[in-house]
């Protein structure tokens, strides 16, 4: 099955927040009554992703070599080709689908929160019901897994009035993104670039950017968290070896000793 991806053309985005609201509408997310936002001196609100906000627009004023630019970034789960969250999820609630989507089955989640700590982009958010008992559920953009599996576009893509969003075969999205970068460069956007082609096994969320990723607050070179590898691929297997060896050793010792030692004479 071909891998799917979202192409976000930030040169076309006008930050209308249609995507932010469409996502909330489709996924039954709350707004002000939950987040109680205030104006902190910016158009940007809410100030962060949350269990009720799976995508949002970040605003950055940028003075670059081509002059002043107002940068907009649609934040959300990157649907990595190599998803650390899936690797550390103990319940299998987070899964990487054959079509590349990193989906989430809420009923399976037990609220451990490891996904929130191991994501290189700090995306998943924990919806905490009770901080004492730990009752919680993880929360993130799932590329409208219910819509996509039924042949529809994600809600945000459908809504975008500036046609800055597209969704489909990943190779096609990459090709489209690369063409767009070329066209932008020809128009004088000297720093135009396509983000997400190769990072972390290739991201499912591709961005056409008009400034370097760092200007948007994106890591230029996001790394798969080394500790996730150490944890999952070294420590856990070693631990299994240790348990196995200990149990075998004990069993062996027990059988051996029974032959050799009888109950000690006691006076």
């Amino acid at each position, binding site marked *: 099955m071909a891998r799917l991806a979202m192409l976000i053309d930030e040169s076309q985005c006008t930050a209308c927040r249609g995507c932010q609201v469409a996502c909330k509408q489709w996924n039954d997310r709350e707004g002000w009554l939950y987040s109680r936002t205030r104006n902190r001196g910016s158009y940007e609100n809410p100030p962060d992703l949350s269990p009720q906000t799976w995508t949002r627009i970040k605003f950055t004023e940028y003075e670059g070599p081509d002059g002043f630019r107002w940068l907009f970034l649609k934040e959300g789960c990157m649907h990595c080709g190599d998803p650390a969250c899936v690797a550390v999820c*103990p*319940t*299998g*609630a987070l899964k990487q689908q054959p079509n590349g989507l990193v989906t989430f089955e809420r*009923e*399976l*989640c*037990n*609220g*451990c*929160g*490891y996904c*929130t*700590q*191991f*994501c290189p982009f*700090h995306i998943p958010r*924990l919806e905490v019901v009770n*901080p*004492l*008992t*730990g*009752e919680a559920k993880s929360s993130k953009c799932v590329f409208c897994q219910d819509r996509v599996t039924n042949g529809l576009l994600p809600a945000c893509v459908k809504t975008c009035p500036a046609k800055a969003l597209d969704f489909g075969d990943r190779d096609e999205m990459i090709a489209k993104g690369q063409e767009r970068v070329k066209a932008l460069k020809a128009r004088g956007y000297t720093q135009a670039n396509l983000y997400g082609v190769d990072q972390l096994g290739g991201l499912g969320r591709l961005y056409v950017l008009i400034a370097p990723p760092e200007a948007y607050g994106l890591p230029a070179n996001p790394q798969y*968290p080394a*500790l*996730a590898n*150490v*944890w999952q691929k070294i*420590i*856990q297997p*070693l*631990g299994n070896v*240790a*348990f196995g060896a*200990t*149990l075998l*050793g*004990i069993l062996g*010792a*027990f059988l*051996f*000793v*029974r032959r*050799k*030692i*009888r*109950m*000690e004479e*006691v*006076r």
Partner: protein
Amino acid sequence: MTVQLKGRAEAITIQWIPKYTTLERAAHWLHTATFVPLAITGMILYFPFLQPLAQGPAGMTFRLIHRVAAVIFGLLPIVYFIFQPRRLILNIREFLPSKDDIGWLKGAPAYYLLGRHEAMPPQGRFNAGEKMNGLIMIVAWFVFGLTGVPMWFGKGVIPPEVFRWLVVFHDLAMIVSVCMFLVHLYLAVAHPLMWAGLVSMRFGVTSAEYAAEHHAKWYYGPKRAMEIWEAKKREAAQKGGH
């Protein structure tokens, strides 16, 4: 006291001496009663084959049990310290490594696997193996606490990069302490030579003969214990081994 052992004709007499106080024993058993559920509920997140138990409401229940047990597990030494601070400190001192431990390590395979009593030099109140168990559990308590508490309350407060280390160390402490526990469990319950260990932890007393054998330095004092051991070794050499 007189004891009728199974499969023996005559009754034997055991002279009991005190080894553990009530609080010590209570702390040990409570520690066990929390450590085991902690380990099991933790392992549900650890072993992929246990994934179905980790999911959904079942998973959340196990996590809850883990936290409840963790609170008790964490408070235990503190409560112990409040009521019998000098006893706790004494025990900790007796867990610290000493020269005897080298001797124990050298003699352990012959003693535990082949039953050669003369191979083991005299030990204090705790032998090296018991010290290892004690120290590992103490260090593990600190590691579990220092990693577990932030893992519980610190999500979103401490940086994820730090959190990832906590998870790794929590895991490492679990592996080491559970392996140690398995060995401890075998030696306490199944190994024939260690029969008095369980009795002493249950009733607080150990048999004098047992103590004389296994914890000679504690029972006789260092000098006398060494003399007895030298004699045992000479005897064994004469007999040409067991």
